[in-house]
């Protein structure tokens, strides 16, 4: 029975989650009750702790809709959480928690539901199973229930702990208990938040103690009895520095089997009600390395990481939008849900550090949600920092998939402390800030409290991702809500492995080719069977549609990337003391998924440079008659066969002269003779230029710009710069729509055919003899509207025989090669084709002048020309005059 399938666990968590969010939903509750009952039937013989608890849960779920009771809902949620945990861990966590949960639930059910049947004997049984452990459990449950502000109860707890420590026969346990008592005593004298923290620490120590006790109990059952006998004496021992007044009152209630929950469940107590509440906060111990749970399901973890990253992306963009509109409760909710989901899933997966941290972060958001604080200034900063930290933790977890150890990132504990004490953060960081009046430090943070269904927190439970692994179902629901805030329509998506997707796309590509081979077969083309032709045509249409569709599978909007940039601008601006915002336009423009990843890095770099160096400090801007705050516009749009990503700042711009000076200094160029503006600006992309010492007064855009260009070229894109001194700079990144498909012009060169990417073709024409000339006898030029363009003889460069060698008999195709045009001499244009660009096999590296191959309609391979490479080849050819040039000379 304990080998409950994971679905059961998931379902249980889902139930717990729902009960927490919506304790009054009656129809599902009844269904849940039935489910719990069924589970009970499988739970083994009546009277065992699991069976008992399930029975109670089922009853509770049944009565909840008719007797709405926050306390019941809460207790039930926890109980179900225990059950799930129990089943999930295959009983490894012991039945103790179950018994305790039963007790608590029974207590509430007995009181709150008059119509309920009297508790069965089996249900009552756990109460009497108390032993020495029960007292420890009492302390633990007291601790769980306790409100940080309730000094009397804390005092009582400390006494109880002291007593336990006294009686403990185990040195280790004694030490833990003493320490715990000490912590709780300290808590009495502290303010609420600090007290909560101390209590958390105490709870953790208590857990240590309980663990050591369990070991001990296994070793020696007799010792347990002895300990139990001594317990009642415990409260008599006064805890040294505790307040006497507090001492007097709670002395009485510490009998061994006292059902603490019944005495303590103060409805106002904002106690811990995380999905796995028995797990005490761990922050106090600050472990630097957390081992991955031994039974961790790596696949599940991987899924969790992906899910959580997405959640956090959403959270981040909401946080950023909160900066401008701090009262947008929907965004607050989005962030809250994201944190909450991460917390829940992390706890479920046994990632202590992360769940604890997320818990704190959630606490902060909960306060925002309760309108206790507003998401402004340092609160907003903290929230953003937590978002980052969670991401870092996710990274650490990802690393842990291999190393099995989660290395807690630096600062996680500091940050989590700040989350609990946000006002301290403010004190440290900003002096000027006035905390909102309603931010009362006296109240404990009401994290994880059952959320009242209010207008501010609509329970959106549409599953956005139906194919999400079932283990993270609650997360999926949360996420849809998180997304729902921004996207009107709820899209349903499926997560697919990229390699499968790629294979599918490849297969479709092959299908297209195979189909066109059929369609172009001589037999078909010359066929008089009209029906057959119709059928072939129809198949062709479907195949083409299929191809379009398959290619769109890879396309994703740039939105995420752009959101990241907003954040970067914000951060860099703060750091460098500038005032800058990034405005994103056209973020729905879609590009190939692979390119998104590749584009991200260069963009980050450019955006950072734009703010750091491009945008002037506010004073300078004002002096220059510009608004104090700089603007970086990030645009994405489609233009022709390209996606253009344009980054435009209104900063100081670049000066041609200073750039040139620097370049000459660096030995990159000798002089600016014949250099167009674009060429000069492109110098910033030259490697080496970037490492120049401070050029900030000129442009500063240097650091790693060569890397930027390389990255962009790697995805077949190119960068253009336009700049105006004092007015700003614009970078335009031109990217192909997709990496897979190239619109190509098939050209004939002698016996061979080549594909010229349409995007680089400007025009083609047959030159007249007057337009042609040679330079120093070797270089060939064609004058086109007054512009001299070098001629590349393809047949020569590519070694094709039987080609037209006289330009006036062939055609010149003018292409953009780098930033200069180049005229390719070809025999004829054969027509435009959409081709799927492929590499020339894994072993063949770069072939000069050729960027890849593509399968042509007849099934043979056509080579795709690379204008840049051809330009270089031409240059190399011109340096040692070949026979073509001579032939050319004689032809003239």
């Amino acid at each position, binding site marked *: 029975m304990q080998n409950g399938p994971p679905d059961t666990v998931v379902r249980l968590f889902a139930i717990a989650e729902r009960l927490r969010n919506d304790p009054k939903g009656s129809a599902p509750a009844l269904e849940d009750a039935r489910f719990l009952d069924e589970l009970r039937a499988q739970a083994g013989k009546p009277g065992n702790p699991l069976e008992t608890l399930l029975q109670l849960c089922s009853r509770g779920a049944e009565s909840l809709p008719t007797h709405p009771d926050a306390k019941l809902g809460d207790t039930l949620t926890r109980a179900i959480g225990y059950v799930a945990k129990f089943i999930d861990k295959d009983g490894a966590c012991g039945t103790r928690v179950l018994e305790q949960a039963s007790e608590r639930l029974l207590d509430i059910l007995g009181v709150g539901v008059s119509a309920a049947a009297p508790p069965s004997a089996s249900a009552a049984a756990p109460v009497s199973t108390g032993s020495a452990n029960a007292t420890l459990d009492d302390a633990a449950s007291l601790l769980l229930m306790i409100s940080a502000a309730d000094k009397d109860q804390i005092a009582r707890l400390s006494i109880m702990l002291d007593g336990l420590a006294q009686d403990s026969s185990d040195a280790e346990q004694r030490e833990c208990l003493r320490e715990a008592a000490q912590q709780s005593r300290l808590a009495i004298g502290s303010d609420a938040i600090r007290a909560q923290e101390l209590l958390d620490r105490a709870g953790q120590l208590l857990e240590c103690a309980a663990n050591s006790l369990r070991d001990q109990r296994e070793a020696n059952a007799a010792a347990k009895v002895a300990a139990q006998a001594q317990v009642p004496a415990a409260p008599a021992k006064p805890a040294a520095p505790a307040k006497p007044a507090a001492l007097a009152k709670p002395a009485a209630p510490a009998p061994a089997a006292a059902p603490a929950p019944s005495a303590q469940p103060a409805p106002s107590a904002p106690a811990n009600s995380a999905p796995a509440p028995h797990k005490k906060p761990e922050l106090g111990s600050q472990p630097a390395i957390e081992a991955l749970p031994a039974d961790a399901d790596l696949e599940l973890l991987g899924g969790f990481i992906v899910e959580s990253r997405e959640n956090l992306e959403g959270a981040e963009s909401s946080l950023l939008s909160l900066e401008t509109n701090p009262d947008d409760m929907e965004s607050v909710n989005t962030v809250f849900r994201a944190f909450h989901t991460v917390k829940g899933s992390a706890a479920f997966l046994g990632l202590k550090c992360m769940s604890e941290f997320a818990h704190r972060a959630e606490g902060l958001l909960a306060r925002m949600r309760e309108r206790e604080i507003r998401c402004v200034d340092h609160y907003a900063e903290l929230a953003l920092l937590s978002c980052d930290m969670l991401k870092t933790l996710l990274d650490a977890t990802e690393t842990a998939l291999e190393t099995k150890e989660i290395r807690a990132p630096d600062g996680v504990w500091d940050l989590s402390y700040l989350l609990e004490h946000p006002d301290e953060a403010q004190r440290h960081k900003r002096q000027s800030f006035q905390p909102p009046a309603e931010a009362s430090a006296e109240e404990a943070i009401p994290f994880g409290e059952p959320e009242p269904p209010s207008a501010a927190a609509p329970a959106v439970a549409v599953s956005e991702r139906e194919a999400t692994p079932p283990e993270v179902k609650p997360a999926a629901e949360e996420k849809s809500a998180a997304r729902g805030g921004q996207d009107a329509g709820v899209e349903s998506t499926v997560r697919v492995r990229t390699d499968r997707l790629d294979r599918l796309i490849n297969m479709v590509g092959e299908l297209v080719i195979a189909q066109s081979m059929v369609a172009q077969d001589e037999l078909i083309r010359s066929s008089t069977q009209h029906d057959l032709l119709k059928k072939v045509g129809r198949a062709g249409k479907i195949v083409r549609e299929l191809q379009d569709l398959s290619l769109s599978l890879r396309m994703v909007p740039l939105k995420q990337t752009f959101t990241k940039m907003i954040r970067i601008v914000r951060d860099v601006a703060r750091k460098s003391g500038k005032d800058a915002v990034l405005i994103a336009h056209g973020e729905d423009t879609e590009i190939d998924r692979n390119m998104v990843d590749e584009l991200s890095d260069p963009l980050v770099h450019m955006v950072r440079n734009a703010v750091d160096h491009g945008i002037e400090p506010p004073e300078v801007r004002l002096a220059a008659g510009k608004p104090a705050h700089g603007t970086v516009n990030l645009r994405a749009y489609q233009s022709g066969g390209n996606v253009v990503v344009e980054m435009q700042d209104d900063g100081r711009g670049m000066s041609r002269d200073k750039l040139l000076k620097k370049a000459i200094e660096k030995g990159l160029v000798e002089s600016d003779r014949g250099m167009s503006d674009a060429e000069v600006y492109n110098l910033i992309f030259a490697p080496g230029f970037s490492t120049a010492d401070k050029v900030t007064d000129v442009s500063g855009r240097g650091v790693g710009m060569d890397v930027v260009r390389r990255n962009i070229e790697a995805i077949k894109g190119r960068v253009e710069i336009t700049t105006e001194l004092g007015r700003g700079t614009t970078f335009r990144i031109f990217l192909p729509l997709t990496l897979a498909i190239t619109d190509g012009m098939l050209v004939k060169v002698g016996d061979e055919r080549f594909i010229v990417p349409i995007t680089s073709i400007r025009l083609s024409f047959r030159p007249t003899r007057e337009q042609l000339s040679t330079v120093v006898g070797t270089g060939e030029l064609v004058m086109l509207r007054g512009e001299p363009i070098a001629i590349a003889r393809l047949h020569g460069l590519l070694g094709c025989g039987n080609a037209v060698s006289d330009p006036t008999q062939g055609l010149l195709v003018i292409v953009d090669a780098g930033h200069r045009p180049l005229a390719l001499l070809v025999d004829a244009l054969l027509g435009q084709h959409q081709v799927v660009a492929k590499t020339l096999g894994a*072993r*063949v590296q770069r072939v000069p002048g050729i960027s890849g191959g*593509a399968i042509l309609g007849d099934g043979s391979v056509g080579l795709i020309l690379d204008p840049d490479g051809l330009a270089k080849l031409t240059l190399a050819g011109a340096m040692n005059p070949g026979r073509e040039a001579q032939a050319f000379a004689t032809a003239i």
Partner: protein
Amino acid sequence: MNPQTATKPKLEALAGKYLTFFLGEEEYGIEILKVQEIIGLLKITPVPNTPKHMRGVINLRGKVIPVVDIRERFGMSAVEATKQTCIIVVRSGEAEIGTVVDRVSAVVSIKAGEIEETPPMGARVDTSCLLGIGKTEGRVRLLLDIERVLADVGEAASSPTAIQA
């Protein structure tokens, strides 16, 4: 050609099944596990600015793969393609590479005892691509280190010296 630097696998380790093929009168063997498939000769698109032994690229069911001319690679004279000329597609790691051969012969088992080290043939004969010599059924089969034969497709293709004028 690269001087032979890598230590050759022990002769015993060479025992196994080989796909044998002919180049003219000489019979060669490729380890069968490295062979993916044998296809008939189809249109090979020459790739400019690559070494001569790189015959070009072909369309292998939608994939573009390079094809090496072993004859050219070994400096043997070219021959007209016949009906028996075919391409052996070799898989090496992730890469698939085709090799044009005159005629595929058979799959033979060569035992450890039947393999001998390649004798030194003087400076004029490049034996760096040979693993050893198998003698079965009274015939001599040259066992090819196909990885090595194909290894310098990429390297040579990318080297600037390969650019034809």
